[in-house]
């Protein structure tokens, strides 16, 4: 009986060994944001407190993406001391729902703490598909791509400029769908191995509206 109790106590001690590690308590381990149109970055602040009885050293903060930079005021936190980890997420050309993770590595705890950041980045427009590809480049067939605007205000296309004279490109508004255009490209000659970028200018101005054309 004595042996069984000893072994059970040993098992319990092993099972709860992780509690002996110094640790930080975060108010929130997951933060969610909704970005505004035109916003370039999100700064997420994760406040924490050292709830252990020993000083905690943050060895490093690793992130799942080069686009997310961690910022920390200092590395050592005494018992009861509070601090914060800042994650700066640079959107770049990202759109839609973005999930980023940061791992907080403590010097005397082998298991890193995980922080999650979710940001919903609005889309201003979409060119679908962004590439028109002529598999039979000697056949001058017309091809279409869809340009759709998602912003609330009215957008007017002021210019459609094809940088290669081998194609003629025009934007036709759809009668049945507001804010949707067909970008119609017609080859004017054999487009074998030809390439083109089509620049679309709008009012109000939106960056990087492009369509790409290619012949095999």
């Amino acid at each position, binding site marked *: 009986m004595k*042996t*069984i109790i000893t*072994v*059970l106590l040993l098992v319990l001690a092993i099972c709860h060994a992780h509690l002996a590690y110094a640790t930080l308590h975060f108010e929130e381990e997951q933060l969610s944001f909704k970005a505004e149109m035109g916003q370039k970055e999100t700064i997420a602040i994760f406040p924490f407190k050292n709830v252990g009885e020993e000083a905690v050293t943050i060895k490093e903060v*690793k992130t*799942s*993406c*080069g*686009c997310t930079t961690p910022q920390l005021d200092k590395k050592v936190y005494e018992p009861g001391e509070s601090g914060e980890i800042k994650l700066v997420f*640079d959107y*770049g*050309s*990202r759109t839609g729902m973005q*999930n*980023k*993770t940061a*791992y907080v590595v403590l010097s005397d705890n082998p298991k890193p703490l995980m922080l999650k950041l979710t940001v919903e980045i609005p889309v201003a427009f979409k060119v*679908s*598909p*962004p*590439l028109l*590809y002529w*598999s039979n480049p000697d056949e001058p067939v017309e091809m279409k791509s869809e340009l759709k605007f998602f912003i609330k205000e009215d957008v007017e296309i002021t210019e459609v400029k094809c940088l290669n004279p081998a194609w003629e490109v025009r934007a036709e508004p759809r009668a049945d769908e507001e804010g949707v255009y067909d970008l119609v490209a017609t080859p004017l000659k054999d487009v074998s191995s030809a*390439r083109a*970028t089509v620049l679309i200018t709008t009012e109000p101005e939106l*960056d*990087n509206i*492009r369509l*790409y054309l*290619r012949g095999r």
Partner: protein
Amino acid sequence: MRFILECVALWGLALFLGLLTAWLHPHAPQLREPLDPLAITSESIAALSESYLLVDARERSAYQAGHPPGAVLLNESEWNELLGVFLLEHYEPSTTYIVYCDGGGCDASKSVAKRLRDELPGTEAFYLKGGIEKLEGFNNE
């Protein structure tokens, strides 16, 4: 002798309870994680019959510091700037795209593979499980 028997009995009891939990638990973890349909392993790349292109989804600085031969840079930070070169110089509808980033917790390759599939319907794009580390000694040319 009695001590050993008691230890074995305890071990047997723990094993029995563990197996029972694994069998009855509604959310028991699978012993072998199924491969994401968007993922590809380095062993599977060698078996691809069609042509493929390696796509580097890391930041430009990491790509410039070193990348496998033939790999093309396409990341989400500079998607609008890099997409044109990718589509006009490298894209072929029949090619399979293997997207990689840093190993471990990197999620950039998954995002780029998914975006290629979403924006260019019919495109075969996969992210490499394990990341760039799995490509060491791998020659794409």
